[in-house]
């Protein structure tokens, strides 16, 4: 069982940073909606406040790691230019997608949207984190701020979801491969 370094870093980018961000986003939405609503009856304790602060910082870190690893590690491998006359395009995912009418939209719509929309997630969650750092529990006293932060977190969830969906589909149709090969387990021949 082997894995290439490009595949490994693509997994870290997508399933590690991106996947974790999506999971965390769902938790943040529930927490902000339920606990920090002006109508919420239960008092928010200092521990709850500290927990959400750390949670949002971790989310912001994940979002930045996801977009930076995507843009500066995986994307250059994806858009690698094939030398003229190359027949086997398996090492050039973008060229491979563009070589067939049945897959070209995964690049022209999927990747073109994903590469930009994904950046809305770190911008939104960094803002949400900064606002919560400043106001903490006091955000309950500023309903317009709290509602807008919640909307931004929802949009960041949507943006990360779009990026995740297209990332998974694109990698399914034209996987990023290459780099050195790492043997994970030495299998027995049956």
């Amino acid at each position, binding site marked *: 069982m082997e894995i290439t370094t490009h595949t490994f870093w693509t997994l870290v980018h997508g399933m590690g940073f991106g996947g974790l961000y999506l999971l965390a986003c769902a938790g943040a939405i529930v927490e902000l909606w339920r606990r920090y609503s002006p109508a919420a009856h239960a008092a928010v304790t200092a521990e709850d406040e500290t927990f959400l602060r750390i949670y949002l910082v971790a989310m912001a870190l994940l979002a930045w790691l996801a977009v930076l690893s995507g843009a500066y590690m995986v994307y250059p491998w994806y858009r690698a230019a094939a030398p003229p006359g190359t027949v086997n395009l398996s090492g050039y995912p973008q060229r491979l997608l563009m070589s067939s009418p049945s897959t070209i939209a995964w690049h022209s719509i999927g990747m073109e949207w994903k590469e930009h929309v994904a950046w*809305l997630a770190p911008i939104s969650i960094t803002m949400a984190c900064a606002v919560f750092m400043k106001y903490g529990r006091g955000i309950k006293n500023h309903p317009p701020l709290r509602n807008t932060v919640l909307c931004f977190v929802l949009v960041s969830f949507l943006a990360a979801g779009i990026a995740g969906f297209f990332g998974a589909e694109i990698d399914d149709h034209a996987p990023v491969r290459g780099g050195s090969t790492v043997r994970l387990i030495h299998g027995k021949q049956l």
Partner: protein
Amino acid sequence: MNTQNAQEISTSADAASLTNGSGAAAILAAGIGAFALAALAIAGDQILLIRRWMVFYKPTGPLSGVTTTAILIWLFAWGILEWRWRNRTVAARRISVIALLLLCLSLLLTFPPIADFF
């Protein structure tokens, strides 16, 4: 009332007495940053000269310049707004609507079939 409870109430009261300026500044700046990203992405896609300018890191291509410039615009806007509004109470509802409109527009404008209208 024990000391911890007193501290918690004091912290909560401090947070409640904060003006909404800082929060509104962060929110509007995020909207501006998101919209700048979408506008630069369209400009980089449609105008050859801008596409060339946006190549900050060759392996990533114009995406490197589009995102870096949008982030700089976002942080600059945030800094200016924070400086102007940090001790003020502003019209948070109106600012929130503007920021959300910018965010929704950027979500739409990054969608290639819509971006191709320009």
